[in-house]
């Protein structure tokens, strides 16, 4: 009887568990995503640029992506950040006027634009909108909508600090004067039924790249105008109010939109590009935990990972690829990101530029920072040196050229050893030595502590400095101290926002008309700005590359903004994706309009 009781007790207890487990595991799902329902489109349907290298494209299927960021969207919002939801909205929910081709990822092509024409003086761009575009609600998308969105980026009537479109505010002439009256020759003007003229403050080589930024997206003005007219308050467009309407290949399904849980973008049957998209939908599911994301990729529940998932190491991605083989495609690429330190040249120990001793100290620090050691320590050796511009832009300089111009980047052990010797000598020449170290305060935002300590550790080891890393709290608290100039060294990181070297110049250096983050290290260099002005208007790529190279050298020599390296970036998608060229850096669109799933 005693045994009987035990068995019954055990059976009763386990019954519930077995029942639950049976229910839980009774799904027909397996590790391989289900094949989409297949319908072979007619040739008329597929008269598009979908790159089909594996048979004819087929319709159907859903791709599932992890939702990691905020659920609030507005292309004209500052926090239009780097989650897939936000970047992916570009090209999927909304369109660009001009975009980098999602097929070759290099050339510019019209998206909403049928054509564009730059004036000979490089000051006016005329863009013709494709006729007959309808938004997700079936209303015509007109040139007035294009005008108003550009106006939003340039004039910010919603008062939203839209930093991602900073190049537009820098390049395009103002539309209104300080009193809010339209200027005689405004930066934007509708000059035809389907045509807009965009006037620039100066000719710029990077104009089209700026307009083709994946962040310069267009929404119908019927909702944004209403927001702005309501008083210019700080508010995103709001899907709950039916304002999340675009022209893109996918539209939000409000029946499947739960903030903080799940969101579905379904196929837009009235997409203005005939026959596209192929997918039925893109599903976003809340997935904030990194381990859960990786596990779900492994289990085949997620189809995408990346871009810019800073918590993942490349070694993890490589292991994932090794384990899953052809089930996933891993596309590693360099991240177009300036990561380095800035030295406060307003501090007597480090500036001003031209002070003999301060110049020596800054240069010593420049030489002693070893980018390769930084990459090895922080990024498993998979990062990329950041010379100030994208290494992919070989028209500016080759890798060997950069090493020659800026030997501190050269990882060759002999060269490194010489750098340290030279750095020590500079410190001695500046009056410091092993018994007389220079004490410096390194202000560090707490989330970047490991990076600050990596740099400080190198410097404390190799030259005669005694650097103390002081945690400034979060980014907000730290930037408050930076604004007050209350630091000597600090870490800086910036992403380029569009596919042109000028993106980096705009983002890294305090160049913006509206001040950026008000960095106050006090560095400036007239020759640098002269060269910047020259490269702006230089049509010849080789000559422009020369100017840019010179600018990088000036920054290197002045050693107030010391660039180091960037971490690796990657994109993962499931192995059955077709028609998709992975982005080579984050500054291209993430449109899935051409993607189809191989059965």
């Amino acid at each position: 009887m005693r045994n009987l009781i035990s068995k019954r007790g055990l059976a009763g207890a386990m019954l519930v568990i077995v029942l639950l487990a049976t229910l839980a595991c009774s799904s027909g799902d397996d590790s391989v995503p289900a094949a989409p329902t297949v319908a072979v489109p007619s040739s008329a349907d597929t008269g598009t640029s979908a790159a089909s290298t594996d048979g004819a494209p087929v319709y159907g299927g859903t791709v599932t992506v992890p939702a990691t960021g905020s659920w609030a969207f507005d292309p004209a919002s500052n926090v239009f950040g780097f989650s897939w939801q936000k970047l992916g909205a570009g090209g999927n929910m909304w369109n660009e006027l001009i975009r980098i081709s999602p097929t070759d990822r290099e050339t510019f092509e019209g998206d909403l634009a049928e054509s564009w024409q730059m004036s000979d003086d490089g000051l006016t761009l005329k863009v013709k909108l494709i006729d007959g575009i309808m938004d997700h609600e079936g209303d015509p998308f007109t040139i007035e909508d294009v005008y108003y969105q550009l106006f939003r980026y340039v004039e910010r009537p919603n008062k939203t600090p839209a930093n991602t479109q900073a190049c537009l505010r820098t390049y395009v002439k103002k539309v209104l004067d300080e009193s809010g009256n339209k200027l005689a020759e405004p930066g934007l003007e509708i000059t035809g039924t389907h045509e807009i003229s965009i006037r620039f403050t100066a000719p710029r080589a990077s104009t089209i790249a700026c307009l083709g930024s994946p962040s310069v997206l267009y929404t119908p003005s019927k909702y944004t105008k209403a927001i702005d007219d309501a008083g210019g308050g700080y508010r995103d467009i709001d899907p709950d109010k039916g304002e999340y309407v675009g022209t893109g290949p996918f539209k939000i399904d409000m029946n499947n939109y739960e903030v903080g849980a799940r969101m579905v973008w379904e196929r837009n049957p009235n997409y203005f590009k005939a026959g596209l998209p192929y997918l039925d939908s893109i599903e976003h599911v809340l997935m904030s935990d990194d381990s859960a994301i990786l596990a779900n990729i492994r289990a085949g529940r997620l189809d995408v990972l990346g871009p810019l998932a800073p918590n993942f190491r490349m070694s993890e991605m490589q292991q994932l690829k090794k384990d899953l083989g052809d089930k996933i495609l891993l596309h590693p690429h360099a991240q177009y990101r300036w990561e380095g330190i800035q030295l406060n040249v307003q501090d007597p120990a480090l500036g001003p530029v031209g002070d003999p001793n301060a110049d020596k100290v800054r240069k010593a620090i420049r030489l002693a920072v070893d980018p390769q050691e930084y990459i090895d320590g922080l990024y498993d050796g998979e990062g990329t040196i950041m010379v100030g511009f994208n290494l992919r832009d070989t028209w500016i300089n080759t890798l060997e050229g950069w090493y020659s111009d800026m030997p501190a980047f050269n990882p060759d052990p002999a060269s490194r050893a010489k750098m340290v010797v030279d750095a020590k000598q500079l410190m001695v020449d500046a009056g410091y030595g092993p018994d007389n170290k220079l004490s410096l305060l390194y202000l560090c935002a707490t989330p970047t502590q490991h990076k600050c300590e990596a740099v400080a550790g190198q410097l404390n080891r190799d030259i005669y400095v005694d650097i103390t890393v002081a945690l400034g709290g979060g980014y907000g608290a730290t930037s408050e101290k930076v604004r007050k100039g209350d630091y000597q060294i600090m870490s800086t990181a910036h992403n380029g926002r569009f596919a042109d070297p000028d993106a980096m110049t705009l983002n890294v250096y305090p160049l913006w008309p509206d001040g950026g983050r008000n960095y106050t290290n006090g560095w400036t260099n007239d020759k640098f700005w002269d060269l910047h002005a020259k490269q702006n208007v230089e049509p010849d790529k080789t000559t422009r590359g020369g100017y840019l190279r010179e600018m990088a050298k000036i920054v290197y020599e002045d050693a107030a903004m010391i660039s180091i390296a960037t971490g690796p970036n990657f994109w993962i998608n499931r192995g059955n994706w077709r028609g998709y060229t992975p982005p080579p850096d984050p500054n291209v669109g993430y449109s899935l309009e051409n993607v189809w799933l191989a059965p």
Partner: protein
Amino acid sequence: MKEYILKRLLLFIPTLIGTALAIFILLRVLPGDVAEIILSGPAGQGSFAHEDVLRLREDLGLDKPIYVQFGQWVWDMVRGDLGESYVTRRSISAQIKNQIPVTLQLAALSALTVAAVGIPIGILAAVRRDSLLDVILRGWAILGLATPSFFAGLLVILGLSTIFRWMPPVGFSHMWVDPVVSIQQLVFPALALGFASNGLLLRMMRTQLLEVLGDDYVRTARSKGLSNTIVIWRHAVRNALLPVVTTFGFQVGALLSGTVVIEAVFSVPGVGGGLVAALLSRDLPMIQIYIIYFAVLALVVNLLVDLTYAWLDPRIRYE
């Protein structure tokens, strides 16, 4: 009894005011400016001008004195207006309304598995005292107690995905919409969440039952010739259950608060995951409401435990 319940309910008010005041002040003395955090963006890469910060502070009402902010917040809550999220710019009540049922389902399922596993296994361990099975079960209980729920959750995820290449369906389905999918999605988080409570309940049940089995009235029952089943189930277990139920009640409270971690690990869109997201983005109004929610929950669970105690033991009277 009614008077006692009313008193307890009235005591909720000062407790909640104290909690609200504490969390309100604590969140505002933390370093870091909310406006700057919002403008910096999720990865801290946003750039902005100082005027933008000032404008946003004004928009959010952060430029007002803290007592004015607190007064406004309490007044709004009294009127049923929970406010708006700083980050999503959406009504908090709308968001939390969707999250609460999810968390309650998870906690309920977890409580069910804890009760269904912990108590019978505890009885089994007591009945088979000092046997190999008892040793194994006790070891299992200690493992549960020593394993943080987030770690148990990660092990479950990794085990399911790497060994079985299976994961619960993504997204979330309510129990009343699709019970099968809902259970598929919640059963593993529930098991991970209840792992520690399971261990505790197992040990508690075993200890209490062993104590009761040594009592005189049990010996009397046996001497009357009652079967072992009747002695154990009718006489011993019922009396041993009293402290176990009390512990279980408190564990329900712990399970509800444990959802904070487990929901984040398993991507369950409930209150816990929402709190983590709100904390990371310094979404003050959301955090405040979540904390109040957990405080209310703790008060209600404590009250229910006390009432259950009286129900189980008729000797207990609340005056």
